[in-house]
């Protein structure tokens, strides 16, 4: 394998590992704020118990996100020097704004949010929680702006092969940014909704009868069932936006080789880049035309349009895009079925008497958000190939001149440590759930609510 492919795999591995944790912290920050505000409003202890359990998951995920994120900031220079040399004038300020407006905010207030509850007034602690949640969302915004600009670049001019910014409004509000941002935020909230529901279901299966667990399960199921239809709608709109700006990606998602009307929706196939055709195709007539153009005879772009006269392929490899798109959509519909089914059962039996089978199903789907999110990112990122910045810079032109052996050995190093860390992460979350189920108290301190006189914190052992 050559440096280019290895570098792509390495970047893919690093960012796949990284995105798992922000996907959790982006939404979990807001969920924690919700728990905290419910507690302030009702004074009901269960909300604080829920907060205390999930804040541990948050702290753990945040740390994983920070350390894997530092890796990302170095990858640009170590593996992709051509990226910043060509588009640094646009990418640079966007990344700088992410660090300045988001990273410091979240990192500093995280300390106060985690360890400051006994040292500051309740409202300051709540406000710190808000700032952490706000910081993670700001960080999402800036990085999505940059990523979207790489898909749908505008507001720049090329001088001697280097990109210069001409209109920052156009750069920030590039055509795919609003869709991608909404799609990612919803993905994060769905991931957390299923994680909260799944871990709560696990604790119930282990026999936890706590009110905090029931409430968390309710919050998870209700928010999941409310958000998943919105996500399907947002995904559809995002797809139409992609059809307009990156038709080659849509052609690969649909495994459609020839441009034309009445294009079928391919349910399953094995796309073959060599013969440029699909094997074992199973499809619904006119389906793709209907979905993408809302007309039976609507014209859908085909992959063969993206081969130049001298035979250079300017579309992505079809199979990875095709399959990851189907994994994402399939997971999404499984989420729809389970969350709506769960909602019906919740109304019928209540959170305390959910049927075991449903609890098992939620357990099994705890990390379904990760699968859908990763599959979605693979669809959009592999779908942009061979471009790194659509129409401006190819991936090949940006790769660094590092020996393949060096990239391979570090890649193996990363993969080993990531594999271990994923196992440890999931193990520790279930271990925390097990410990909480055994009823070890979260705290011996009485939490003051906003407005009440705060009581002196009890020292451990006192």
């Amino acid at each position, binding site marked *: 394998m050559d440096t280019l492919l290895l570098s792509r795999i390495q970047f893919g591995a690093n960012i796949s590992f990284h995105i798992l944790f922000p996907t959790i912290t982006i939404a979990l920050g807001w969920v924690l704020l919700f728990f905290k505000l419910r507690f302030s409003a009702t004074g009901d202890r269960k909300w604080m118990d829920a907060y205390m359990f999930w804040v541990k998951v948050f702290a753990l995920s945040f740390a994983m996100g920070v350390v894997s994120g530092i890796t990302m900031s170095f990858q640009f220079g170590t593996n992709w020097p051509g990226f910043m040399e060509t588009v640094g004038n646009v990418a640079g300020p966007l990344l700088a704004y992410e660090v300045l407006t988001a990273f410091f905010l979240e990192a500093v*207030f995280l300390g106060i949010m985690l360890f400051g509850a006994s040292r500051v007034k309740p409202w300051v602690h709540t406000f710190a929680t808000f700032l952490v949640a706000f910081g993670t969302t700001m960080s999402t915004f800036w990085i999505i702006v940059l990523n979207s600009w790489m898909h749908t670049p505008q507001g720049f001019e090329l001088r001697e092969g280097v990109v210069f910014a001409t209109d920052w409004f156009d750069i920030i509000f590039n055509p795919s940014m609003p869709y991608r941002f909404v799609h990612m935020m919803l993905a994060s909230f769905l991931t957390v909704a299923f994680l909260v529901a799944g871990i709560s279901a696990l604790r119930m299966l282990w026999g936890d009868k706590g009110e905090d667990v029931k409430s968390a399960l309710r919050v998870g199921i209700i928010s999941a069932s409310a958000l998943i239809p919105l996500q399907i709608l947002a995904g559809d709109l995002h797809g139409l936006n992609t059809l307009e700006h990156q038709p080659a990606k849509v052609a690969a998602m649909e495994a459609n080789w020839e441009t034309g009307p009445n294009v079928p929706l391919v349910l399953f196939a094995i796309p073959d880049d060599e013969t440029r055709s699909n094997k074992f195709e199973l499809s619904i007539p006119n389906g793709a035309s209907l979905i993408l153009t809302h007309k039976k005879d609507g014209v859908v772009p085909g992959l063969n349009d993206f081969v130049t006269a001298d035979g250079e392929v300017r579309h992505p490899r079809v199979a990875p895009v095709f399959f990851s798109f189907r994994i994402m959509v399939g997971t999404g519909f499984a989420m729809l079925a389970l969350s709506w089914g769960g909602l019906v059962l919740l109304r019928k039996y209540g959170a305390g008497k959910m049927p075991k089978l449903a609890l098992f199903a939620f357990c099994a789907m705890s990390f379904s958000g990760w699968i859908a999110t990763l599959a979605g990112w693979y669809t959009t990122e592999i779908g942009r190939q061979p471009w790194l910045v659509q129409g401006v810079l190819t991936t090949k032109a940006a790769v660094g001149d590092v020996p393949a052996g060096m990239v391979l050995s570090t890649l193996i190093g990363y993969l080993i440590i990531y594999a271990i860390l994923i196992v440890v992460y999931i193990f520790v979350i279930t271990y925390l759930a097990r410990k909480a189920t055994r009823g070890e108290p979260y705290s011996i301190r009485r939490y003051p609510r906003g407005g009440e006189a705060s009581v002196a914190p009890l020292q451990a052992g006192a």
Partner: protein
Amino acid sequence: MDYFGDPNVWLPWTFAALMSFSILIYVVLDGFDLGVGLLMPLANDDEKDRLVASIGPFWDANETWLVLAIGLLLVAFPPAHGVILTALYLPVFVMLLGLILRGVSFEMRAKAPIAQKPMWNFAFFAGSLLASLSQGFMLGMYIMGLTWTLPHVAFAMITAVFLTVGYSFIGAAWLIWKTSDELQKHAIKWAKGGIWGLVLGIGAISMATPFVSKRIFERWFDFPQILYLSPFPIASGALVIFLWWSLARLPLKNDRLSWTPFTAAVGLFTLAYCGMAYSFYPYVVPEQITIYEAASAPESLFIILFGTLFVLPAIFGYTLLSYYIFRGKATELRYD
């Protein structure tokens, strides 16, 4: 006023200053918390918890300065970023591995089953060690001009050891300030054991740097520069003597002066760092690329500078707030 008139001159200069400043803050702040990690094996089980507690609320933010520094290099001097990081590919990888290991074990040692705690304590130490050694190694390679020859690598290995000992020193100085009783006495002992590394490290870099290039030699030793540069070594020497003196006498009654070793250590790091910055200016890649050649387009730098002017004071404000909230001796880390 021509100097301030041309944005192609003062913008790169400003960004070089901002970047150097972030690296300095990173070295001092993450220096002390990496140093605390390095001291882990020397502490007993109860002390280990307090070591971690002393840096708990701060380490996330401390590492963010690294992201800012590398981010500024990336956004303000893109070609230099590529050259430096591809040259330092392997040490960067080792450092990242160390930082990952460290950050993860920080959380895990408190959350994983108690039987695994010694393992995570070790991972915390090992991660701190890998990160410190590789940073020292990169420092040495940078001074030697980023070329991989045997003498350069040998020099970089020496700076790796010295920086690591230097970090453990500033970590111990932090602990003298943030802890009390037995642990504080231990920290004083550790600081005494670490100060030689700092002195030798600063000495080695100061000795070696001028001989790497004639340009740097002349910058320091030509008359009259040597006159107004003389406060650097003199002040450094005074700080070292002060440290020696105070470490021999601490702890004092009522915890008097317990903050001074850390402050003096910060002073030493700062002086050494400023000396280095003076040596290498105007180069961002030693003897190859100047900050003016590597700088991004002025219009892009303007946009960043504009934001920075508003945001940086706010960052300082809430960073100070955080240190103020967690002032005093380190107590047990609790979420409630």
